[in-house]
């Protein structure tokens, strides 16, 4: 019996790791190693003609799909064979994830939004795992503005949906407050929310990789300048590259990536719950007063 479960475990772990391996293989096959340092966007595999704008299928798109597939198998791995009496470590992990995200969402958004837990978990997982792809040498989709922009757009749609749900007239009226001539600024600040979210995330990750590349290049130059006179092959090894890039990688690839994922999730929760004061809404609908009572927005 346990042997069968073990076989399933191994199969699911392999299926989890397979997309990542496929990504590495794709990178090796499709992209020849560049000469020197280069700071460029995602590699374009091919382009599909579309109305308005052509759709390039890029490394960042493919890598996010790989992350999604990987997470899908990971979910299956940690949730298969659940028992009411927790016996396996992966079941503990699964329960821990669910309990933590649900309590986080409840603390930050209130009881009304408790259904948002999987969405927040999805934001965290997609953003965090995408940023961590740099650890295995793949292009992080989070350093592509279009990817993060899509997530921010979704959050913006959610915010607007909940503001409309709170009361469409009230929402439209809120643009003219406190005085009418500030309306353009209000519109800008409304649009600025997703833009700032997208730019913050994408900028942090991209700047991390840019700094890493620059430091590595600088260290290589310094190394060849100082130690270039050593005889034979010793002169060609950039010894100074040992150490510092690793520390930077821990900061930029792991810490910064996870921190940005957390920040993005926190901002999503705050904006969405701020757009819809559930208690106020309930009170208003009980009183049947329409839009008389003020709908308090955090914005």
């Amino acid at each position, binding site marked *: 019996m346990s042997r069968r479960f073990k076989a399933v475990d191994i199969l699911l772990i392999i299926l989890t790791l397979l997309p990542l391996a496929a990504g590495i293989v794709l990178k090796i096959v499709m992209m020849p190693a560049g000469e020197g340092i280069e700071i460029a*966007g995602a590699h374009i595999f091919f382009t599909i003609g579309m109305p308005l*704008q052509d*759709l390039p299928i*890029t490394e960042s798109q493919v890598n996010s799909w790989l992350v999604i597939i990987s*997470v899908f198998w990971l979910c299956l791995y940690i*949730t298969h064979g*659940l028992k009411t009496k927790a016996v396996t470590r992966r079941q503990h992990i699964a329960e821990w994830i669910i309990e933590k995200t649900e309590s986080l969402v409840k603390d930050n958004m209130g009881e009304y939004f408790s259904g948002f837990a999987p969405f927040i978990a999805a934001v965290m*997982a997609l953003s965090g795992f995408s940023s961590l792809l740099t650890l295995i040498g793949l292009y992080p989709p989070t350093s592509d503005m279009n990817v993060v922009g*899509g*997530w921010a757009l979704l959050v913006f749609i959610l915010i607007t949906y909940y503001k409309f749900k709170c009361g469409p007239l009230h929402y439209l009226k809120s643009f003219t407050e406190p005085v009418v001539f500030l309306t353009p600024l209000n519109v800008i600040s409304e649009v600025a929310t997703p833009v700032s979210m997208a730019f913050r995330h994408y900028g942090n990750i991209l700047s991390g990789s840019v700094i890493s590349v620059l430091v590595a290049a600088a260290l290589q130059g310094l190394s060849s300048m100082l130690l270039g006179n050593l005889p034979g092959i010793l002169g060609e090894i950039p010894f100074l590259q040992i150490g510092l890039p690793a520390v930077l990688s821990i900061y930029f690839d792991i810490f910064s990536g996870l921190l940005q994922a957390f920040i993005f999730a926190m901002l999503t929760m705050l904006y969405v719950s701020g757009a819809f004061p559930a208690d106020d809404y309930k009170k208003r609908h009980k009183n049947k007063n329409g839009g008389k009572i003020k709908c308090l927005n955090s914005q």
Partner: protein
Amino acid sequence: MQNLEVISVNLWQILISLCNLLILFLILKKFLYKPVRKLLKKRQDELDRQYSSAENDRKSAMEMKSEWENKLSAADEEADDIIKTAGANAERRAASIISGAKDEADAIVKQARADAALEKEKAEKDIRHEIASVSVLLSEKLLEREINESDHKALIDSFIDEVGTGNGEGS
């Protein structure tokens, strides 16, 4: 080799990325949250059931306990009764045994007294007889002649009777 510009905006890519997030949300909801929530609910139900059954068990145990306590006190009373009646019975029986024994002892003593009186009478008779014969012998020896033994004996007997009754009354 083509690369995207570092800063570039592409509408379709943004839409695809939006859909990616939605898809991952659905995946997590269906494959991670649904089974685990179901499990947690099942566990909660099981826990509730166990709690309620434990509560029921405790209640029935308390009922049984009070019942047994009642039974125990009743049994104590019964035991007291039994001991009391047994003591009374024993006393009564002891009294009857003692009285019976006393009667028996009295009878034995009476019998013994009668026997003793009989024995005494017999012994007196024997002694009288003996004394008479000894007296006859003595007087024969004394008189050195044989008198009519039967006359003599009657004489002595009457004498001893006189003495015996006098002695008998005295003792």
